[in-house]
């Protein structure tokens, strides 16, 4: 896959397009024929109850899991590209468990976020580091601290910052609110909304439906591996069917 960094790439309407994605763990079909689109410059969210397959979906799009179906990034199929190559092309994931380098400093974590760019000997990496510190002042304060000693909210910010260092064009976030107190969640989502302004397209997976739908443009609801509902985020926010999905009013397994 050749990387087209010319203006032509920016004109691609869909930053990310997932077609017919299915993932099986041995005998279990965790994802069934999932279709979704992330238009350039928008925030798309996938919500749903626990065990729905949201993390599986992100991992499959990232290439961490074998999957059937197709993933197109900026119009080009990346279905057979390795994870590391996808990162190098600008598709980044902030996973559910953050996967920080706990025994390394905040500064090192951020520097490593730009690893593909270091390999390509790109310039401007120190500037990006400053930009990340500007966006997350608390990280600048703690830059020589070990990542493992940070609080939950700070870890989330570090994970976000690290992903941003790669100058991603599509950023995927897996449950950024997980385990965080409501005030911090608010801050994180404010930052997510702000990211859109820098031209990053965002695919946001969340269990906290309300916060996600407030910040997103479009939403999908995933339940037991299938998309059961989709629509503009504002419409979904007031749709009673969403509540049912979460708390089981739908009575599907009533005998």
């Amino acid at each position, binding site marked *: 896959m050749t990387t087209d960094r010319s203006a032509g790439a920016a004109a691609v309407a869909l930053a990310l397009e997932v077609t017919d994605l299915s993932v099986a763990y041995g005998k279990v079909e965790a994802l069934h024929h999932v279709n979704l689109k992330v238009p350039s410059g928008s925030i798309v969210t996938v919500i749903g109850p626990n065990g729905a397959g949201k993390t599986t979906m992100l991992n499959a799009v990232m290439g961490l899991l074998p999957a059937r179906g197709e993933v197109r990034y900026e119009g080009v199929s990346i279905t057979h590209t390795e994870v590391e190559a996808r990162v190098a092309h600008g598709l980044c994931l902030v996973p559910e468990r953050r996967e920080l380098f706990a025994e390394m400093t905040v500064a090192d974590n951020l520097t490593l976020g730009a690893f593909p760019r270091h390999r390509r000997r790109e310039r401007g990496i120190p500037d990006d580091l400053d930009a990340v510190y500007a966006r997350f002042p608390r990280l600048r304060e703690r830059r020589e601290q070990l990542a493992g000693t940070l609080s939950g909210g700070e870890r989330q910010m570090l994970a976000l910052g690290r992903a941003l260092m790669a100058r991603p064009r599509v950023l995927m976030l897996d449950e950024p609110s997980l385990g965080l107190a409501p005030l911090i969640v608010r801050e994180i989502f404010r930052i997510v909304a702000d990211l859109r302004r820098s031209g990053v397209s965002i695919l946001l997976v969340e269990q906290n439906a*309300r916060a996600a739908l407030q910040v997103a443009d479009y939403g999908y609801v995933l339940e037991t591996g299938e998309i059961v509902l989709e629509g503009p985020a504002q419409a979904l926010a007031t749709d009673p069917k969403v509540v049912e999905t979460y708390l089981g009013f739908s009575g599907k397994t009533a005998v």
Partner: protein
Amino acid sequence: MSRARCLLFVFLTALVLGPAFLPEFYVTLLNYIGLYSLVALGLVLLTGVGGLTSFGQAAFVGLGAYTTAYLSTAFGLSPWLALFVGFALTGTVALFLGAITLRLSGHYLPLGTIAWGISLYYLFGNLQFLGGQTGMTGVPGLSIFGLALDTGRKVYYLIWVLVIAALYSIQNLLNSRPGRAIRSLRGGGVMAESFGVDTAWLKIVIFVYAALLASLSGWLYAHLLRFVNPTPFSLNIGIEYLFMVVIGGARFVWGAIVGAGLLTILKEWLQSLLPKIIGQAGEFEAIVLGILLVLLLQRAREGLMPFFQHWLPPARWVEAPQSAPALPQRERPKAGERILEVRAVRKQFGGLIAVNDLSFEMSSGEILGLIGPNGAGKSTMFNLITGVLPLSGGEIHFRGERIDRLPSRRIGRRGIARTFQHVHIRTTMTVVENVAIGAHLRGHKGVVAAALHRERAEEATLLHEARRQLERVGLGEHLYEQAGSLALGQQRILEIARALCADPVLLLLDEPAAGLRLREKQALAELLRRLKGEGMSVLLVEHDMDFVMNLVDRLVVMDFGERIATGLPREIQTHPAVLEAYLGGVE
């Protein structure tokens, strides 16, 4: 006659008739293969089945060989007496080394075996009374009942009788109650412990058994060759024993003989033929062996036996009888009696508080659901109740008795049985055998009885019970299938059957509906309702709200390690704290 039995018959016949027709050279080769097979059989039990990798078996061979060599030359002791002295010595050393190294988890264990493998080898070579590097000569030959086994051909029969006997004993052992426990040792043994298996002791048992087999091989070696020196007991040979087992197929008892045979023949061919072809002497067998092993581990990690098995369907070893004496049952608690009390339980992992002052109760005969968003602490709670994790604070009482400081296997004994979030079954064992593990505490026969095949009556009752439970849960048609071939839903129900085999009072189910299809969930819900109707108490952790809401009597909702609500399903569905926890309340 099945294909397998045919082949066995042919093999045994060839074995018996071989020495009559084969030239001396091949008889010697077969003798060596027999000697190595003994050690390899021990490794199959220890490493292949038990999951404990040992590179140090050659040291035990040395112990057996040197004991008999020394006692029969320095004291003129009868070799047969020396054999038992050797067993005693090897057993003691093995117990000692086992007690230390078997505690070593993960990859530390094989490193430990390398350590004492080297130590013992250098010990053999440096003790003067053992002859140092030159060793001891003049070791007498064997004689049985006056018949002197003075030729290789005669010792051959003794060797192979012992090999077949050892193989038979291991085969018997693996298809018995302790055998099922041994086969559950892999993967951490959490499941085995929850059904009452003392995994630490069992590991020592198989370790000592493997050491004794190696010692026996050493004894035969000394009296076959009539001299002993340290070379065959080096670490390199210990490594070769492991290679044999990997080549043959570590999990297969016959793999030991296949592997021993192949490796010996390969070495022989390489040592004698290659130098003639290449025109230079060298340790080519080491090169070829090394490369072969790497390729094998990259492409065919299960060894060669699976290829043979393809061709020969395995014989069925277990038969669950349709009727057998029933096992005694536990006394059931009265309906409504308080059976489980969780009092202000706390669990901390370093700075992270996973469970924070959680309290709830359960009465006999009810289905209680423990729910909550991701990361709420539900699975941790489960592990605390079943003794997998220790508490940081609080108490847990079961039927009036405090259980929070007991290890899982004692908790299992008191009537709590569980299933697991990620199914813990032995995929290569049959369904009925998997379920029979649940009845482990309801049997008593040990390793020796099993090896001698003298526990058949008890085995029949255990297998019958497993069959009964499988029929009760609706899997009666699948008794003899490999557990790995069942659908996930069926595997989850298999785990429930296994738990039922333990005759529990309280069933703990960890996400039993995860990954199930709609129909499977309906079947599961029906099974659970039936069990409740028969007086069983069930505590389940679940994410699937549809499933839970229609099944449970009461719910306990957790979030951030704390209880945020308790009550009936309908109440919970409209409870504001619950709604906020699940859907989020950010402005």
